[in-house]
C-alpha cells in the first residue's frame, strides 16, 4: 500500500520537541531559576508540553496546506 509520506517541514516541526525535551537535557537540567515555585527543569518540561502542542499544530497546518486538494488526511 502506498501511503502518503509526511513533508519535510512537518517532520522538522516534529523534531523540535525531541530536541527540546530529549537531546538537550544537560542544557536545562538545573534547579536554579525557580519559576512559579517549580525547579527550572520541571518548568521546562511542563512548558514544552504546551510548546509541543504548538509545534504539532503548525505541522498539522503544513500537512493540511500540502494536500488541500485531496482532503483525505487522517481519520476524520
Amino acid at each position: 500500500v502506498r501511503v502518503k509520506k509526511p513533508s519535510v517541514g512537518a517532520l522538522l516541526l516534529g523534531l523540535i520537541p525531541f530536541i527540546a525535551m530529549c537531546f538537550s537535557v544537560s542544557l536545562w537540567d538545573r534547579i536554579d531559576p525557580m519559576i512559579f515555585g517549580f525547579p527550572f527543569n520541571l518548568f521546562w518540561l511542563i512548558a514544552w508540553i504546551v510548546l509541543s502542542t504548538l509545534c504539532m499544530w503548525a505541522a498539522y497546518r503544513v500537512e493540511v496546506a500540502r494536500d488541500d486538494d485531496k482532503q483525505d488526511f487522517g481519520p476524520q
Partner: protein
Amino acid sequence: MSPSTVSLTTIFVIVALGAAIGFLAGVRRKMDLEQWTVGGRGFGSVLMYLLMAGEVYTTFAFLGASGWAYSRGGPTLYILAYLTLAYVVSFFILPQIWEVGRRHGMQTVSDFFSRRYGNKYLAGFVCVIGIASFIPCSR
C-alpha cells in the same frame, strides 16, 4: 452513609450506566466485529481526544507515577517527556496505520503482521506478545 457505601454506590451506578449506554448503542445500529474492535473506523475528533486523554490518565499516572515520584524523585520527570514525544510520533505514523488498516480491513495488530509478511505464525507470535504485555500494563 458510610464511606464504603458511597464508594460502592458510585461504582455500581457507573457500571450500570456504562452497561445501559452500551446496550442502547447496540440496539440502534448493527454490531459486527469491526464495530467492536475499531468502532467502525468512524470515531470523530472529540471522541478520539477523550480516548487519548483516557489513555494517558491511567492507574499508573495517578497512583504508580505519583508513588514513584514520592519515593524516588527526579527520574519521574521522564514521564512528562515521553508522553509528549509519544504523541508527536503518533501524529506522523497513526494516520498512515489507519489508512492501511482501512484499505485492507484490518482490525488487530496480528492482522497487520499476517497481511504484511504473509506468515500466520508470526501473527500468532505478535498476538501472544501483545497479550503478555497487556497483563502488567492493566494489572
